[in-house]
């Protein structure tokens, strides 16, 4: 049973402190595009806007980037720098180069990239930092990981919806390190989903979790139905199996989280769960320990995820609808 690195989000020194206290092994972050050019408002070179609902999702400035990465490294934690924009016009090459240089200069350990053309470009340009092929690339099969290896990628983030059995297949046959989202995320193929969050209009939220009237052949059949909700939010109970499968990194969503401390508690849960699993405790024993000792689990989550049956790898209404 191998220990899995936990990758947690950060967007500030404070959040980095919380995540490092929670014993994250790696943090991922991005730089506000306004630090590169005043032209950019919410457009960024990574997978989050500069701000979501008024909450900053990025490190504010190049100076702060240096400070934050210095701090994170001082805590013995590695840094993944997000450059995972879906696609980019060549017109922005100068600004994109500056963005990448900012992360490299500040000491990032990995680059997260989600476009094959950009991956190839970065290698040709001579960047030697390890590249992580992000979830927006949607890598559903081992054959694609071989292509990624050929392009000089070292790690791949698997898409939502992969099964435990498939993770084992990836580990067995792929030349790359394997990372997956363990907590939160969308219900569709996130890299190809155009039900985008709006950074400015609250009413336009993630479509996969929204509620709809259902109309079939011009007749309303149902209302307030979560028809598209196939989001699986939690893999805690499956950690022992993921550790057996040899997965390398589990990632927590949350650069846009409005409460960085609460987000860091999720990181901590994944660390504690692993510790207990390596001590030989069973999942029911670990959950019982959580109920008794981890008050934030019982007071905020109650346990929420278990109640709502959003297990990523257990048979639920959602996972049973996967096309397998």
């Amino acid at each position, binding site marked *: 049973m191998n220990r899995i690195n936990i990758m947690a989000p950060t967007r500030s020194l404070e959040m980095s402190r919380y995540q490092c206290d929670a014993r994250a092994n790696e943090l991922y972050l991005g730089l506000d595009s306004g630090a590169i050019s005043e032209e950019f408002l919410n457009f960024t070179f990574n997978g989050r806007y500069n701000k979501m609902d008024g909450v900053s999702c990025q490190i504010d400035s190049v100076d702060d980037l240096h400070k934050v990465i210095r701090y994170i490294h001082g805590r013995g934690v590695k840094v993944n720098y997000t450059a995972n924009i879906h*696609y980019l016009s060549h017109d922005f090459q100068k600004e994109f180069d500056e963005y990448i240089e900012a992360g490299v200069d500040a000491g990032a350990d990995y680059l997260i990239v989600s476009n094959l053309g950009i991956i190839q470009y970065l290698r040709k340009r001579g960047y030697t930092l390890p590249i992580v092929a992000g979830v927006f690339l949607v890598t559903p099969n081992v054959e694609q990981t071989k292509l990624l290896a050929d392009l000089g990628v070292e790690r791949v983030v698997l898409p939502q919806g992969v099964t435990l059995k498939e993770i084992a297949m990836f580990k067995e046959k792929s030349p790359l390190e394997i990372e997956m989202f363990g907590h939160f995320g969308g219900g569709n193929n996130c890299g190809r989903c155009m039900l985008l969050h709006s950074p400015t209009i609250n009413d336009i939220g993630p*479509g996969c979790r929204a509620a709809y009237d259902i109309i079939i052949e011009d007749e309303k059949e149902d209302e307030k139905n979560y028809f598209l909700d196939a989001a699986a939010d939690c893999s805690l109970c499956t950690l022992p199996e993921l550790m057996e499968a040899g997965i390398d990194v589990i990632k927590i969503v949350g650069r846009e989280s409005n409460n960085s401390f609460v987000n860091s508690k999720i990181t901590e849960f994944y660390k504690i769960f692993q510790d207990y699993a390596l001590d030989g405790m069973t999942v029911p024993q670990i959950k019982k320990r959580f109920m008794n000792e981890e008050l934030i689990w019982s007071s905020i989550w109650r346990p929420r995820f278990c109640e709502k049956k959003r297990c990523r790898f257990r048979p639920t209404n959602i996972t049973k609808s996967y096309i397998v």
Partner: protein
Amino acid sequence: MPSFELRVFDYDRLLEDAFLRQAEKIGIDWVNFGSESCYLQLPPRPLMEEIFSRLDGFKKKFSIPILYESHFDKVTELFGPVCELADTISVNDFGALTYLETHFKNQISSVSIGNILFFSYAECPWHDHIIRDESERVQGNLLTGNFDNEWMDDFMARYPFRFEMEMPFLKKLRGSASSLKEKGYAISFLPDIVPVSFARACHSSRYWGLPVDKCLRNCRQMVTLSPTHRWDFFEADVTEIRPVIKGQMPDYLVWGNSIFLKNREDDAGLMDEHIDKVILDMRFYKDLNQVAERIERLSDSQVTA
């Protein structure tokens, strides 16, 4: 004049001589079957071969869905016969494309980039809201297709195929279409629907409580979704969408694991000289008479122009 491709999901129709002869008569040049999103929708091999054998007189395209690792070997077994029988194969992930290149580049010269591989922010139903305050240059970047840049040109040069690009017909993507045409892509526009999102999960099966592995093709029934409540990430709950916003949000059309918008754009520009093909989706036409009317309107619009 662009050619016309008919995308057919009901395989029974492709076994009807009368259907195929009428399709030929009304000007359909290509017939496309298979699936972009679900391997369970693919016909079994004997049926696939039977259908191909009936498509004399047409150019033939077979669509391969995005291939998760569990399905990869099962579906790639079909690549050999498909490459022999089809004029072009449409792929929806880079693993399948690379596999084709490695094993079948001498058997098929033409590959189509399907709706899951090609996308643009222009497909987001509310992209105007998202980008309205950005500079013109940023807006121009976002409203292009994901293959339309020099970095992807360099990347795609590794493949020996003649590529077709399947794109929704959106006025904002016409510039990209023209640019991709200059780069050597054949351009195919879909005027009926705009692809928005695809999932591993079959939403239709979940709604009807039917098991996916015993699929009864419940995805053939179109479901229209009208948004009423938005998800509030921080509250972990839904909130009713304000009427003023709701009125601006379109309905979605869902088949199984695939989410689309009805394309509301008029046909102006659809028959421009840099368009190679118009793909008509049979799900939007009651019968071939309606398809014929559409083709006639499009042809007239080109004459008028």
